[in-house]
Structures are given as C-alpha cells and as structure tokens.
C-alpha cells in the first residue's frame, strides 16, 4: 500500500518524460539529426534551462514538448499523455523570442486572446487580465498598444498572455534574447518571483550561462551535430535567489561546470 502510493506520487510528479527521443529533419542537403537519444525527466515545479550553441536542438526539444514538432523516434509524455493530447488540453503557455503581440489589440485585449479562444466568460477574462498584469508588474498598461511599450514591457506582456489561462507548464524560447543586459537582469529576477508565486513548471531556452544558472533548478547542457544532452546539472542553489547570488562560490562553480559541458560538446567535432 505504502509502496503503491509512493510510485503513484512519483508518476504524478514527473511532468515531462522523454525516453530515447530522436528527431530527424529531412533537408535538401540530406537528413539532419536535430535530436539524438534524448532522455530527460522534468518534475512538477522544476525550472529547467536548456543551454547550448545554435543547432544543439534546445528549441527543437521545447517544440517537441509543445507538439509543434513530431519526434521521429523514441517516446515522450507530458502529464502522462502524448504532447499533442496535452496541447489539446491547453497544458502549455508558450513564450517566443519575439513578443508576437497583435498590433491591432491593446495589451489587455492581447492577453484576452487565448481566453477568448478558450471560451472564458467576459467577467472571468477581465478578472484574469488584471491578475496577470499585476503579476508581471504592468498594471495600468492594459489600454496601451504594443508600439507604446518598450521591448522589455512587450515581453512581459507576452508572458502575462501565457500565464492568463491555466496551463501549468510554461515554455519559454529565449524570451529575453533580444533585450539588453540590465533589462534582462530585472526580468530574470521578476521571473523567479513569478515562478515562486505560481508554482508552474518552466522550460527555458537560453544562450546565456549566467541566466541559466541564476534561474534554474535543473540545467540541461546540449551540444550540436547531432543534437544531444551532454550534461544535466541539478542546482544546489536555494529557491530564494537575490541577484548578488551570482557572486557566490556555488554559483561560480555551477557556471564553470556548465561551461565545461559546453566545451566538451564542442571538442567532439
């Protein structure tokens, strides 16, 4: 009895399970192995960063999770079902590198877009818009149009849009890649607070080692040709992380290990 409950608890704890995942893209120059033999478990409430050079398959893996790409081999389950079933149940909020806000909708109506599509009532829509605007510190900007906001604010609005409905997985594909360092630091700090408040499971693709180490509970280091996982680092850093944690010896040690992992991946070719 006792054993059974533990296994059940474990099964519900794993949000994403990938086993021997392969993905081959046919191209004009022959097939490209975007993902090769990827094994990974993401648990509920994890903040997982995917880091690696271009072409390592980090974005592809995120897209496979969201059922935007179909794997050509292996298995992957999300919430115990196939990614496509999870997509139909609206299990994901996806944030792209560009905010992708509709220029003809103001911020509030942009955030309402998924809510309209999913058929929430008008009152519920308004309530949720206010909630998520407050969550990303954009209260009072609902009536503004995207072009009236800075790049960082636009990206926050697009995060709010992904948070507005009840997806418990948030997938972020280099959301802060186009922003400058200072804005980025601020948004990283905010994102951590948001993660602590909402208890979502986050998959986060990045190029930046400090960003990955600062944000994550788990860092997945990947390398290209073929795209594969070279190292998975469980972060020993506490959940509460002020920005100056980046000067601590633990932080520097993890960053060093990530860098080593990236270098090892490169020396292969």
């Amino acid at each position, binding site marked *: 009895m006792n054993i059974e409950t533990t296994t059940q608890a474990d099964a519900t704890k794993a949000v994403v399970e990938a086993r021997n995942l392969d993905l081959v893209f046919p191209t004009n120059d022959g097939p490209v192995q975007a993902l090769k033999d990827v094994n990974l478990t993401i648990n509920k409430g994890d903040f997982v960063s995917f880091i690696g050079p271009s072409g390592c398959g980090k974005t592809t893996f995120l*897209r496979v999770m*969201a*059922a*935007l790409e179909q794997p050509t081999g292996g298995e992957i389950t999300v919430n115990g079902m196939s990614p496509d079933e999870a*997509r*139909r*149940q*609206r299990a*994901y*909020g*996806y944030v*792209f590198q*560009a905010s*992708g806000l*509709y*220029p*003809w*909708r*103001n911020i509030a109506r942009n955030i309402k*877009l*998924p809510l*309209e*599509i*999913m058929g929430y009532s008008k009152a519920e829509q308004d309530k949720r818009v206010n909630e998520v605007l407050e969550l990303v510190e954009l209260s009072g900007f609902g009536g503004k*149009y995207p*072009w009236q906001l800075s790049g960082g604010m636009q990206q926050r609005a697009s995060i709010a849009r992904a948070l507005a*409905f009840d997806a418990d997985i948030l997938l972020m594909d280099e959301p802060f890649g186009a922003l400058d360092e200072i804005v980025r630091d601020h948004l990283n700090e905010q994102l951590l607070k948001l993660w602590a408040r909402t208890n979502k499971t986050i998959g986060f693709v990045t190029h930046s080692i400090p960003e990955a180490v600062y944000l994550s509970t788990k860092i997945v280091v990947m390398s290209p040709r073929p795209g594969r996982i070279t190292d998975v680092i469980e972060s020993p850093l506490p959940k509460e992380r002020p920005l100056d944690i980046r000067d601590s010896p633990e932080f520097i040690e993890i960053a060093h290990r990530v860098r080593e992992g990236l270098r090892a991946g490169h020396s292969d070719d």
Partner: protein
Amino acid sequence: MKTLIAVLTVLSVIIAFWYAACLPMNIKGVLTEAERAGAEVTPAGAKERRDLGEFGLVLDNSFAIPATWAQDRPRLPAPHQVAQELWKTTGAMVLKGKMMSKRSLFYHGWVTLSATLLGFAIGTGLGILLAVGIVHSRVMDMSVMPWAIVSQTIPIIALAPMIIVVLYSIGVQGILPKAIISAYLSFFPVVVGMVKGLRSPDGMQLDLLRTYNASTNQGFWKLRLPASMPYLFASLKIGIAASLVGAIVGELPTGAVAGLGARLLGGSYYGQTVQIWSALFAAAILAACLVALLGLIERSVLKRMGMGA
C-alpha cells in the same frame, strides 16, 4: 511651404508645356480658317502648307498664335478651354439649377459612378471570397490563381463587347453589364492583396495559436483577417481606379448615351475635342476623389484598430 512651391512649379511647367504644344498642333487648322476669312498667310494655300513643318509655320505667322488657343474644334484644346468646358458642364449647370440635366457632367459622372461602385462592390466581395478560398485550400490555390492571372492578360476592350452581347442575349441590360466589366477589372488586385495579407502572419504567430488549440475559424477571424487589413486597403485603392476604367470601357461598345464613356465616344464622333478632354478630366478627378476617400477610410479604420501610429 517649400513642398507647395515645388508642386506649383511642376504644375505650371506642365501647363506651360501644354500651351506650347497647342501651337504646332493647331496651327494648320488656324491658318486655313484665317485664310478663308481673308487674312494674309505665308505661304498662301492649304496645299502649299501641307508638307511644311508646324514650327516654321508658327514662326512665319505669329499673328495666328492667340487663335491656336481659341479654336472651336482644335486638335489639342488649351487648358483654359478644357477648364471652361468643365465649368460650363458642372458648376454653371448647378447654378442654373440643372445639375442633373443631360448636358451636365454630374449626370454623366453619376451614371458612370453608380456602375463603378456596384462593380467595385461585386469585385471586392468576389476577390475577398476567392482569397479566403485560396489561402485555406491548396486545390483552390492551384486551380483558381492561374485563371485569375490569365483573366487579366485579355485586353478588357476586346472582352467588353462580348460580355455585353452575351448578357443582353440572356436579358440582362442596364447598369449590370457595366458593373460586371468593372468588377472583372477590380477583383484581381483584391485577390492578390488579400492572399498576401491573409498569409502575412508568420510561423510564430501560427504556432502560438496552435498552442492555444485554436480552430481554423478562430485563426481566421482573430489573426489572419485583421492582419490583412493594410493589404486590403492598398488593393482597394487600385481596385476602385480599375473599376472606374471598367465602367467607362463598358459604356463604349454599347453606344451608350449617358456616362463619361458616352461623352468620350460622342466627342470623338463629332470631333468635339474639348468635350473629350473635359470628360477625361472629369474621370481623372472622380478617380482621385474615390482613391482619396478610400485613403480617409483606411486611416480611420487602422487608427481605430490601433495600427495607425
């Protein structure tokens, strides 16, 4: 201010060139008339002058220059003659309370405009429907688009009489045949613009809707259609000008008695060049007004959509 001066400079150069062009164009006619009226012309005799250069004739008979701008039926009427005719058939008629008399350009303009607007409405509606089909169905993309392109390679002037004859034989006449010719010209820019507009959302936008599990319908109304608006308006501006051309061309082969096309045709039957030119200008002014009106609608719509910064 600077742009105003530049615009006025260009305009006055065009008008000066036009007046100058009247000299060689009209000199022979003027000299023939003058000789008949008893004036001394060098060289005497229309036969003698026939093979001489027009510029030389102007220089030898400078007394005749004012007359080249004041003929009844000049080869090329002077700007003020066209302006006078325009006023006589528009403003002056209004002052006399005969705005819709058969000699008024408002009357003829309205006849053409009503066919234009009907044709524009048909063409725009058809164009949007075709574009929606082409974007959503690969079969339609492959089967309709080539025909739409081919349809525009046939000169409308060759096709218009057939359309009128065919429609007449099944009992359709009046405004509709003209409107159909006008729609035939205006649907094409709308199809091309709308296809481009409906396809303008990028892969990321479509992926985003996929993560929401949005239906094709929702994708159309919430993303594709609003994204296509700027493209639609660009097409509409081309479409309305093409509609007007279509309506005018539709009036030519029928021997219509009303409409700007009828004025053009009538003018050329009776050698009334001033009438032809004033009808041409009326058509150009009408087209400019229509395009400007669409521009205003575009600005207000895009502004209301939040896209006009």
